């Protein structure tokens, strides 16, 4: 058979065109998959059973404080030696990967001797890319610990093979626009069951998830801890036994804690109210809150962040108001807080 130069050129051209068409097709398909509408799942629907506390922080750049924080964070990532392409990626693509909201949920079963944590990172469509991250994501979250993939009740999870317990992250899953990281697999399964309504929340959980729903509708950060069933007291008792240090000895006198945080362009301000069961232990609660404020000040100071606050008794509550300054400078310097 005589293969002429012309024939080879034709084949090459056709093959090249074919590959180019495939790449273009793949990119179009990938973009459709990546950018197609993603149903939003609010964090309050993912509250595991026996939850007694949550915090949630809205990181949407619509908030001017968050926008300033994000800009400074981007600036801190771009150095003099950063290339143009990398700088462009940080400026233009990074905001798409920035979470819209972070929520933390703490639960404690009646018979358990360890609290369970779930961190929910609510993202945009880019959460889909995390499904493709595979090994690098495992290593970033769990280090060199071996992991396994599990499918339970139709939902996929990735978990550390032999979790050591404690407060270290041990499993994760992706649910619609949320990335869920838990201290054990069971707490993530619990969250999933609450979402699918395979489990029914109790009255108190309904109440707490209602508060989380309200909190997620607003800007800033919110904190809530309920001690009506004594879970908050047990939580501090576990911390005391673990670290041989009583961080909050008067916690039994507290019925609930509510707090809020507002991001301003130059600083962060917030307040926490400790609702007490009666008047008799107010002085002790005030002393504990003052100590916690002192500890926070000293921890922040180690990262060159200043905090100023005021603790006072109001009726049967102890109020704590604070301002955090230089937070942006610390982020620019790349300090860990």
């Amino acid at each position, binding site marked *: 058979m005589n293969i002429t130069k012309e024939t080879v050129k034709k084949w090459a051209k056709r093959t090249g065109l074919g590959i180019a068409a495939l790449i273009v097709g793949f990119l179009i398909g990938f973009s459709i998959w990546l950018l197609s509408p993603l149903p939003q799942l609010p964090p309050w629907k993912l509250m595991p059973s026996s939850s007694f506390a949550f915090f949630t922080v809205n990181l949407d750049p619509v908030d001017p404080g968050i926008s300033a924080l994000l800009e400074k964070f981007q600036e801190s990532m771009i150095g003099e030696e950063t290339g143009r392409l990398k700088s462009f990626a940080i400026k233009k693509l990074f905001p798409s990967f920035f979470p819209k909201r972070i929520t933390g949920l703490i639960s404690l079963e009646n018979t358990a001797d360890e609290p369970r944590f779930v961190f929910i990172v609510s993202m945009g469509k880019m959460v889909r890319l995390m499904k493709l991250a595979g090994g690098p994501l495992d290593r970033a979250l769990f280090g060199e610990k071996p992991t396994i993939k599990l499918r339970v009740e139709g939902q996929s999870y990735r978990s550390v093979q032999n979790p050591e317990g404690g407060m270290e992250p041990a499993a994760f899953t992706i649910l619609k626009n949320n990335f869920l990281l838990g201290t054990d697999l069971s707490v993530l399964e619990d969250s999933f069951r609450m979402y699918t309504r395979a489990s029914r929340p109790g009255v108190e959980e309904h109440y707490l998830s209602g508060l989380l729903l309200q909190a997620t509708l607003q800007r800033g950060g919110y904190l809530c801890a309920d001690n009506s069933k004594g879970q908050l007291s047990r939580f501090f008792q576990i911390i005391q036994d673990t670290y041989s240090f009583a961080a909050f000895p008067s916690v039994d006198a507290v019925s609930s804690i509510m707090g809020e945080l507002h991001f301003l362009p130059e600083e962060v301000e917030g307040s926490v109210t400790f609702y007490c069961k009666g008047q008799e232990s107010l002085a002790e609660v005030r002393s504990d809150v003052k100590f916690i404020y002192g*500890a926070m000040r000293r921890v922040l100071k180690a*990262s060159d962040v200043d905090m100023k606050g005021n603790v006072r008794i109001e009726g049967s509550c102890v109020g704590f108001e604070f301002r955090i300054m230089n937070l942006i400078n610390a982020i620019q310097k790349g300090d860990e807080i």
Partner: protein
Amino acid sequence: MKIIGFLCVFLTLFFLMCSVYGAETPAYIPESCISMVTVANIQGDPGISWMLDAWIHSPRQSPLRELLKTIKAREMSVAVFPPKQGSLHSLLCVMDLGKGPKPDKEKLNNVILPDPDTQIQSVSYKGSMIFYVQTDSPEDFSAYAVLQDKLIFGSDTDVLKKAIDGPSVEKSAEYQKVKAFFPQRKDGLLFANNDGARFVKFLQPLEEKWNMTLLLSAEYLNWMGSSFDMLDSNQASGIFVFQGSDESKIEDIQDDAEFLGEAFKRKFIAEKIDYKSTVEVKGSAVILNMQIEGIEPLWKKLFEQGILSLIRPGSE
């Protein structure tokens, strides 16, 4: 007769003063130290003698504890010095042996030997023999010398040479102020010198390790002193003094003293120990008074962990 009577009374008073104000061991602590603890009347005081006995016989045995079983130290000073580049803070320990039995040479060597195969070397320095081992990173001590009735251990030979050379911490104006602040010496005296911000620098590695600024007012402090009394194995009392350099910063110093008192309280609550403290301001000084009851189990726990690891940042 009157003269003999006067001499008897004078001598009695002098020896009493010596036992209370003894403090002979700081004479061998160089002025460059960051902090120093002196424990006096070790054999005579019920609280201190119990502590020493509990430390010596705690389960975590060491050659130093073996040595202390055979000697009768009357007084002891332990001092911390700035670290050499890339190493831990240097330590110096001076013991006053009085007229008690001389220490056994083998037991002394064991304290500095990292392993039995290491060769003990010696060097003569200003008429004193220094025994040492060559090691890059001594666990606690790697050199010792016996000067009359004083036994001195050091992290290295340099710190021992400084102890022999002087000048002693007793010559420092700050130490004199601490001594003047506590005219009635109790069982122990702690002195932390912040001259040239040396105490601030000492705290820095601890702060980095714990990600926490321990004293917000550290830079405004001239010195920190503490006098403490072990009444018995279970009860202790102490006074901490934070001497500020400037009265305008007194609120910050007071805040630190209160935080420290509250931190102690929370530690003791977790250990089921009774603790009471008060904070008062006197001029540019802030004074923290503490009373503790039921401390025996905590001492035992501390001795099992290794007490030197608490004062030497970076060591485990």
